[in-house]
């Protein structure tokens, strides 16, 4: 036991701190963690978000003035990159290095959409899910890449 805890004041202070700290964590954060259990059967490489045009004020402007692209995102794992462009009608993507395979959009509840990845690594997934989802790319050679969450 911490020697300080023999002192009544110090012990009560430590206890206050211990009981208060759980309140700091937003309930949504805990719930998201619980939901992650649904992904346990997917044995995948995780690709983390490395670029998001929504976080880039200059780029967000350029994209808005230019075309139907709402947002562009990049996810990367050690060996793979997934580039995405979100448009109103579809998610346009490219897997790099290119490899034939399938791509699935999944939410916590299961599969939302599915498409083929062609030999250049391109895919068109549509219509885009209207709830948060992640992409699971499964290549012919047997690699599975799972992106971070995409919130429409």
């Amino acid at each position, binding site marked *: 036991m911490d020697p300080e805890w023999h002192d009544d004041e110090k012990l009560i202070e430590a206890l206050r701190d211990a009981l208060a700290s759980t309140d700091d964590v937003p309930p949504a954060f805990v719930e998201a963690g619980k939901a992650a259990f649904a992904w346990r059967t997917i044995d995948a490489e995780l690709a983390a978000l490395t*670029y998001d045009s929504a976080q880039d004020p200059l780029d967000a402007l350029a994209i808005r003035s230019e075309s139907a692209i709402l947002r562009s995102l990049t996810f990367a794992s050690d060996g793979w990159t997934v580039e995405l462009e979100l448009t109103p009608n579809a998610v346009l993507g490219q897997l790099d290095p290119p490899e034939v395979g399938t791509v699935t959009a999944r939410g916590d509840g299961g599969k939302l959409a599915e498409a083929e990845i062609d030999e250049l690594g391109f895919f068109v997934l549509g219509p885009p899910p209207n709830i948060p989802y992640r992409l699971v790319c499964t290549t012919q050679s047997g690699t599975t890449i799972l992106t971070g969450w995409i919130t429409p």
Partner: protein
Amino acid sequence: MRDDPTVVDLVTRARDGDKNAWDELVERYAPLVYSVCRRCRLAQPDIDDVGQSVWLRLVEHLPGLREPAALPGWIATTTQRECFRLIRATSRVEPVDFEQAPDVPEQAIAEEEVLRHERKMILRTAFAELSRRCQMLLGLLMQDPPAPYDEISRRLQVPIGSIGPNRSRCLTRLRQTPALARLAADGPDDRTRG
């Protein structure tokens, strides 16, 4: 907490597909993940991203987890690594102090937060083992500012003169709870000295 049987049991059950056990693990360690992220000065959306990565890695890691007792350390270190990766990848957060010596503070923050989390878990467990009356009394005294004695007297229906002695009696019981006694039985524990 090194050989906390509850953690071992939760890990084993979660590994076998028990969703309730997983939920309990998340409840238990979400504050640890959260506090490490806060120490890295991440904003909320980034904290959510890191949280997702950590829980997913844990889901994958469960079958290979040899020593469930090492779980808090694993969680803190993984969180730390994910935080730094995010900081480096997006530079949305200024990586001021971290870039200069990325490895040293990385380990230090994780270890520190594990110890703080352990201490808090022990105290929370001990508090839950106290009688309802002690919990109420200490609860009122822990308010900021502490509830005045006359209010405590009214709410708990005890004489004002008994509050002081009861306070120290309840704290003594807290020290004697199995949660704290287990620590004492391990001998002087330098690891948790703050």
